[in-house]
């Protein structure tokens, strides 16, 4: 609470500073720049029998500062405070009262020093680094984990990525296209344990994944996050460049990353007898190392007013649980802990289309953008008899090839002041989502958004796990 009050006082001092109303706050001849926003979210369930059932209310204050020490040295700080109040429906599900208060402890979101030399940029500190170009789901974008507890994958990713402490070096490679670079990443393992992997909302809270079937016995669950220290650090390298072929320019990148798998595997440690509960399953959630070699490619097909994007990552020894009741005996004997490893080929193909024909613009002056993406996971050496599962011990089984297709389009009306959009996704195992939305812009400071998130399908898969999260979201922002 004290931190929140502190931020409010800081905000008051900033907005009461005699700066021009229509500009970034700029002090000391532009060596210090400050801006940010205040935002409120109101989310209402729309699929729990009672329409407009209040789900949660969130308020955020974000302050961003850039402090220029010399021409080549810059300190960037992003502070964020969030308070959240859950609706009655959620509380009934037993979400800890103080769960969302924890968000506020994460007040320093990003804090890094950037030093530039000709052709070389060094960033050290807590930050986000992004590889890849996909929307909704990640293929190459695996450096920072994501906090899905806010609004799953539907929020701007810069707001829900979990920043990590790291050293990030970019060496540009001069060429006539201005596209060549080599990047190095090193995470020394000083992040809090929970910040190294994806975070999900607890059962019952908005955007919690659908609970799996009940266990036959009580479960004693413990989570083993990756530890701190150099040996638990992560690192990666990426090379980017461009080549020309058949009259087109192809941008590509090659990358290798050694980090942590974003989600856990369940480690079955046996059954013990509790004096009160009787037989109890001793289950640990543990995170495995990720070794990913990947590549990306994109090119423009101007004749079709399109850009094609391809991304692929080969995951070595990715952990998967298997169904201990349905897997064959050999699997169960060889892997008594309940999980095994498989190599995974994960790839995506995206097609962005910005057509100029009048009928694709829906009455707008500006072209709409239409984007369709195909995501596929292909398990190498897949064995039906092993009956591996998708996510940390939850059904359904992971098939050799899993496919998700996404689509979105957005347009601009009234000189950008009204921006409608529509997104949809389909998991071929039987679930889908559709998300109509509209952004409104008023003057320099006010922004509003209305969005409805609809999910359907009973399957426990990439989209179906969000069924029962149909929600209307209203967002109001004052930026300064």
């Amino acid at each position, binding site marked *: 609470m004290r931190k929140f009050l502190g931020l409010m006082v800081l905000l008051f001092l900033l907005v009461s500073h005699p700066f021009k109303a229509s500009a970034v706050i700029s002090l000391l001849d532009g060596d210090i720049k400050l801006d940010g926003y205040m935002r409120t979210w109101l989310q209402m369930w729309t699929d729990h029998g009672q329409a407009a059932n209040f789900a949660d209310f969130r308020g955020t204050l974000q302050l961003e500062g850039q402090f220029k020490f010399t021409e080549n040295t810059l300190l960037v700080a992003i502070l964020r405070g969030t308070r959240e109040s859950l609706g009655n429906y959620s509380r009934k599900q037993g979400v800890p009262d103080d769960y969302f208060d924890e968000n506020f402890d994460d007040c320093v979101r990003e804090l890094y020093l950037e030093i530039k030399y000709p052709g070389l940029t060094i960033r050290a500190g807590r930050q986000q680094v992004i590889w890849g170009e996909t929307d909704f789901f990640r293929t190459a974008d695996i450096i920072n984990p994501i906090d899905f507890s806010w609004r799953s994958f539907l929020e701007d990713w810069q707001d829900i990525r979990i920043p990590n402490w790291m050293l990030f070096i970019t060496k540009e490679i001069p060429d006539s296209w201005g596209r060549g670079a080599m990047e190095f990443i090193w995470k020394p393992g000083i992040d809090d344990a929970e910040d190294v992997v994806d975070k999900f909302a607890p059962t019952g809270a908005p955007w919690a994944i659908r609970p799996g079937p009940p266990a036959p016995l009580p479960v004693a669950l413990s989570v083993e996050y990756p530890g701190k220290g150099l040996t638990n650090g992560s690192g990666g390298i990426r090379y980017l460049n461009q080549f020309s072929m058949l009259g087109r320019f192809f941008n590509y990148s090659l990358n290798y990353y050694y980090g942590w798998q974003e989600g856990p595997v369940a480690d079955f440690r046996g059954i013990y007898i509790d004096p009160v509960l009787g037989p109890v399953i001793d289950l640990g959630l543990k995170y495995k190392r990720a070794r990913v070699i990947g590549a990306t490619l*994109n090119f423009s097909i*101007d004749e079709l*007013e399109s*850009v094609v994007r391809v991304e692929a990552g080969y995951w070595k020894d990715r952990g998967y649980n298997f169904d201990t009741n349905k897997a064959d005996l050999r699997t169960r004997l060889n892997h008594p802990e309940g999980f095994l490893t498989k190599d995974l080929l994960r790839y995506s193909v995206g097609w962005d289309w910005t057509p100029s024909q009048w009928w694709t613009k829906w009455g707008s002056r500006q072209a709409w953008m239409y984007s369709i993406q195909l995501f596929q996971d292909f398990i190498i050496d897949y064995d039906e008899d092993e009956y591996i599962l998708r996510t940390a011990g939850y059904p359904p089984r992971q098939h050799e090839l899993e496919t998700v297709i996404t689509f979105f389009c957005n347009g601009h009306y009234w000189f950008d*002041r009204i921006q409608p959009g529509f997104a949809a996704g389909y998991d071929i195992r039987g679930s889908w989502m559709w998300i109509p939305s509209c952004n409104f812009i008023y003057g320099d400071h006010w922004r509003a958004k209305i969005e409805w998130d609809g999910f359907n399908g009973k399957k426990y898969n990439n989209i179906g796990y969000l069924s029962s999260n149909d929600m209307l979201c209203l967002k109001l922002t004052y930026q300064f």
Partner: protein
Amino acid sequence: MSWLRQKIWVLMVFLVMGSILFGSPFKLSAQLKEGDIISKDNWEQVKGQTFDGGFGGGKIEEMLTPKLIEQIVNWNLKIRLKNYQRYEFPIECQELTKKYGGTYKLEGKRLPGYIAGIPFPWETIDPKDPKAGWKAIWNVLYGRQIGDQMVTPKFGYVFIDGKRGVERMQHGEWANYYYKNRSKVPPVPVHETPDNLYSKNLLFFVYPYDIRGLGMMAIKYDDDRNQQSYAYLRSVRRIRRLSSAAWMDPIGGTDQLYDDQEIYDARPEWYDDFKYLGRKKMLITRNLPYVLWKEDEKGIYEQFPWMDLRTPPFWQPLSVWEPAWVHVIECIPPSYHPYSKKIIYVDEEECKPLLSEMYDRKGEFWKFFHVGGSPKPDEQWGRKFVLSANGHICDYQKMHATAWNNPASFVINPKGISEDYFTVERLRAAGK
């Protein structure tokens, strides 16, 4: 009687002298002078008058286009007269035109092998030549002199609603690097590249918060290929490749199309035709000061003293207009372009379009574009190059306009910046 006759003579002499000194309703053709303002209030009175302006100008009505007169009479455009001030290209540019100008030959729509200078010196263009329009437009594309490289550390878009006034603002940064027609910064006159590059452009937005960090980069070729386009999206913090085919789409929420930048910014090969409509004396907005946005002022009216933000339709420039020779070109875009035609008025000395009228597909008047030319010494040698100090593109159908005014900060041929500055990675570095 002789006494009375003498009095009458004295009175007549006074009347004649008074008329000369203070103006007279009997006068048929009076001279306007620098500083006089033409507006709808005095239009009927001044339209037949002349303004020499040190140029041997002409009758006001004849030095304005019908669309400018319509704006004066119906849309509160005010024209403050200024005497002619000669602009000469930097000596190196003149020498390049002497060396290379007139040595090029059109091949259909194409102008292969361009190196430097004005390709077809204006005096060599014969209005009767069926290719005169094409020669003139190649002059516009290649001949304008805005430095070998240029950085605008800050510019401001003002979005204006024709009924309610200022709607919102956007601030950005802008930088260009040119590979052809280089006159000062080595290598000159051409920076050879294996891929026949023409220019690289960087654009970053810095205000307001929701677009801060949005950056765009365009890599343009010196042939009819589409440019390569990249955008850095801060909301997802990544660089995204964009399709470059929609070169005739609006730039964001502005009233300006991509090929409206600097009034004309498309490869001529992409257009259907160009017609040369002649050379005429016109009043145009040139030799403006280069500080038109006083960003340290608090109020919006004080920040933009060169914009008439108080008077409907709130978008007219408060510029100075001087007489100069202008070449008029009618540009005929392809059938899928939003415009059916675009008429551009090119200042002969600056080789830069400063006025433009755009017509919709039905042939009806749609937009008017005012640009103010402003010569500014470059940072390293003090050579004067001409940049756009302001621009007002006004949509008379939707009653909306986008205007920009530059603060003092644009830098021509800046020190310490080379081609290496223009990389896609720069987008991410700038997009904090």
